[in-house]
């Protein structure tokens, strides 16, 4: 940290997190660049919190994930406050170097009223144009019950593509299929997509603000409902953050059950996505068959957790469900049957030239775009980035499972690296990767079950939290890395700030890049193959 020495006021280490407090907010861009360039780390979240009551300023934390072997997160922390009455606080923007920061900075401006100086995109993000100005919901002085008046007549300024013959196709927020709401504005010349802009946050329901009014256990239920199909991953990240603050050790059996459920979640969602891709290419037979398998998995979910979407699996300090021998046998049987059927259906899909043709070279996300935008999960891996939170930052029982068989031996690793370079980042690549992950997940479940500890499912320790303690919790959902930052309140039973950054939030900007070489009718395939959550993004 030599070069940054005098600019860093203090440094604090908390398990695998390094928090460096900057002396002045003007050093933010320099510090961030330093972390990316010198330490090969990647911006993975930007957290703002209103700590005016406790420390007299808004605090911004730029969280970096060190890329490589070490399991370390570095948070650049800076403070900012209103310099004068009626003037919004500001920080220097980092978008010039970090294009992925644009969504974060726009979000912080909407929710906290902190301006990012130098960000050319000053359009509202979370609070749509009809919200009246001067409303900053995540500030502590904003009451959650406030009903903000509605302004009329304002329009969101989409980029207007100049040129004769260009027309715009507005799609959404109410889509034709059974999907979540979001608005897509295509500028097209006939079938060719010239530009695409997304307008999201239709499902914004104030999750982060709501969490601040809840007790810890209630917020756990909320975290499951950030995105209904990622309930295990999100609640896991939340629980792990709290357990990290309290330094609680969770029983091993609970950790294993967490992993089993996390993998089951991955399986049923990947099956759903693959079925969706099959529907979107108009191959209804494949989707019908895959949906049957998905239904099987969901019925299994219902048996083991009491909820078809695996709600209620995680508890702070353990899990809420136990798996007896009967249930374990059922998991093994069902996954085996699903796997056999699945392999059969996939081998059929692969022989259908009409299916493969529609996926190949559709929705290409290059490695450079994936890196620049910091994409995560299947999308990033399909583009050739070697990222997987389960392996890079092992949590729960993943250290004991062979998550990634590619990194076992040098030969495998070599082969895998070559394979990575060949990946094109198209819909077919994402399709194949999901297929692979389904099989991998079933293997991991087998491994976990065969090695299941006989132990408690909930820690017997009491949760020892300290006021305003904070930590990062993270997990790899089927969409990719989800990172939650939890800061407990003064009474140690409520939340002071809960910042959720799901995989979808980082992956959404990728879609605007992915469609540029495609035609309009292929957009649904691109969209489905990226498998993005709106609710997890909009919060």
């Amino acid at each position, binding site marked *: 940290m030599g070069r940054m020495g005098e600019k860093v006021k203090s440094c604090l280490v908390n398990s695998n997190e390094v928090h460096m407090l900057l002396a002045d907010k003007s050093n933010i861009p320099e510090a961030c660049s330093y972390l990316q360039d010198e330490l090969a780390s990647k911006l993975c979240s930007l957290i703002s919190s209103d700590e005016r009551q406790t420390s007299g300023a808004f605090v911004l934390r730029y969280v970096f994930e060190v890329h490589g072997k070490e399991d370390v997160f570095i948070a650049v922390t800076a403070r900012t406050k209103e310099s004068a009455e009626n003037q919004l606080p500001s920080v220097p923007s980092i*978008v*010039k170097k970090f*294009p992925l920061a*644009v969504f974060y900075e726009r979000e912080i401006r909407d929710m906290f009223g902190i301006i990012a100086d130098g960000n*050319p*995109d000053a359009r509202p993000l979370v609070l749509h144009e009809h919200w009246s100005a001067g409303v900053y919901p995540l500030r502590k002085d904003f009451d959650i019950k406030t009903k903000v008046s509605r302004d009329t007549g304002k*329009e969101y300024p989409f*980029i*207007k*593509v*100049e*040129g*004769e*013959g*260009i*027309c*715009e*196709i*507005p*799609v*959404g*927020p*109410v*889509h034709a299929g059974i999907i979540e*709401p979001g*608005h897509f504005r295509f*500028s*097209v*010349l*006939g*079938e*060719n997509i*010239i*530009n695409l802009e997304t307008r999201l946050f239709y499902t914004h329901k104030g999750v982060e603000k709501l969490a601040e009014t809840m007790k810890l256990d209630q917020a756990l239920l909320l975290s499951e409902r950030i995105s209904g199909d990622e309930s295990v991953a999100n609640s896991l990240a939340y629980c792990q953050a709290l357990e990290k603050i309290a330094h609680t050790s969770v029983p091993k059996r609970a950790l294993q059950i967490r992993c089993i459920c996390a993998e089951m979640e991955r399986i049923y969602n990947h099956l759903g996505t693959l079925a969706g891709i099959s529907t979107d290419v108009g191959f209804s037979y494949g989707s019908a068959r895959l949906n049957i398998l998905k239904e099987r998995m969901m019925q299994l979910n219902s048996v083991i957790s009491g909820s078809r979407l695996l709600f209620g699996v995680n508890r702070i300090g353990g899990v809420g469900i136990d798996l007896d021998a009967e249930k374990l046998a059922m998991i093994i049987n069902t996954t085996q049957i699903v796997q056999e059927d699945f392999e059969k259906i996939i081998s059929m899909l692969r022989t259908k030239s009409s299916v493969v043709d529609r996926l190949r070279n559709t929705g290409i996300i290059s490695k450079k775009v994936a890196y*620049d*935008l910091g994409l995560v999960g299947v999308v990033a891996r399909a583009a050739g980035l070697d990222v997987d939170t389960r392996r890079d930052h092992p949590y729960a029982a993943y250290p004991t499972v062979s998550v990634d068989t590619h990194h076992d031996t040098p030969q495998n690793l070599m082969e895998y690296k070559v394979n990575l370079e060949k990946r094109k980042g198209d819909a077919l690549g994402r399709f194949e990767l999901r297929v692979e992950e389904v099989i991998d997940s079933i293997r991991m479940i087998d491994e976990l079950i065969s090695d299941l500890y006989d132990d408690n499912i909930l820690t017997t320790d009491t949760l020892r939290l300290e006021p305003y303690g904070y930590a990062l919790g993270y997990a790899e959902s089927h969409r990719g890395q989800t990172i939650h930052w939890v800061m407990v309140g003064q009474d140690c039973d409520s939340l002071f700030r809960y910042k959720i950054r799901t995989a979808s939030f980082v992956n959404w*900007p990728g879609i605007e*890049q992915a469609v540029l070489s495609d035609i309009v009718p292929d957009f649904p395939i691109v969209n489905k193959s990226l498998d993005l959550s709106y609710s997890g993004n909009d919060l």
Partner: protein
Amino acid sequence: MHLWLPKAHPAAPSNMSALMSAVMIKIAIYGLVRTTFDFAGPSSPDSAWWGLLLIAAGSASALIGVLYAAIEKDIKRALAFSSIENIGIIILGLGLSVVFLSYNLKSLASFALLASMMHSLNHAAFKSLLFMGAGSIIFRTHTKNMEQLGGLAKKMPLTSLLFLVGALAISGLPPLNGFVSEWLTMQALLSSYQVPNTLLQISISFASIAFALTAGIALATFVKIFGISFLSRPRSVHAERATEAPKSMIAGMAVAGGMCIIFGFTPFLGISVISSAFGVDGSQFIMPTSPFQSLSAPQDAPVTPASISMPALGVMMGSVAAAVIGFIAFATRGTKTVRRVYSTWDCGFGNLNERMEYTPTSLSQPIRTVFKSLYRTSTSIDKQYFFGSNAYFKKSISVNSTSKDVFEDLLYQPLTGAAIAFFDRVRKMQTGKVNAYLLYIMIALLLLLVLARLI
């Protein structure tokens, strides 16, 4: 007494000049017919090459003309390209006639000639209608660029109705006149199996592909021209402020539209005019003399020929329409349904505007893509970014697409240029009074027919 071209708008081209053109072009065709049949010598298989040449030239001209009409965004130029297409079809019929004559298939030859001449007669009717309609549009909106038009059906209801008649007719849809002559041409093409020369037979079947493709694209083209100009939302202030064309213009179009309908339902009127004008021997194939007699292909063939009867078709469509209306009324009896007006479905976003409806360029883009080798289009996208080459922050995007092409430069530019220059000269004859124009049309038509009779 309406003045058609106020002096304040000298740039606005006249629709009447265009109408004249529709007739004048036929004089050139007439010249070709006479040359062909008078100087091509006695009928012998050796002269089939001339027919084949005409077929080739006709089908190529038809196809290329319609392809250019399909992507054109200037309404007058689109109609001009469509004229090239139709002349192609006329020449194709002529060529067929020559080929048939060379093999001494007299009845087929006269049938093909009839098809060709019917088409030129019909073309005169619907193309003058369309040109007049275009003229009215230009007169009221001061633009001939379809990118600026739209929504005129509500502003100019009568014009839109008449233009629709013309568009349906030129697309060869029943029960209008365009269908009759296209039917005749198709039958002439189908009869080509009677030519005892395999090479010719196969060549003609290739011409059939071109002809059918032409017909298919022509339909798409006129969906585009009518749909873009008259339907959806106005794309510019000019179109927004448009009002119904003056009565005189409507009257002119109504005459031509009436001809499209009359020649459609009673093709025998046109046939008798043509056969008397050209002295075609009508005895060799069924010549309908009464409204309900059907029109048939020549009976050289060993099997029952194809036939249509347009009046019967009209009666049938009418009775089916009555039956449908009756059935729907019966099926919905007892239930009172309401028709409510609400904005177009916008996926819940609201604020639909004229930028969110299809433009003519976008509409024809799939066709442009399919035939891209013929168009050689180029599209350049210019993107400006906030941070140099950082492609994630777009400042502005502009698109420029062109469809310059060798065909256009070498062949059609001079041709259309000459045509437009010719129309401009004709325009000088205008006096600005509608009856004078109508008189011109009648004189021109009569002259044509009388000339034909005399020579």
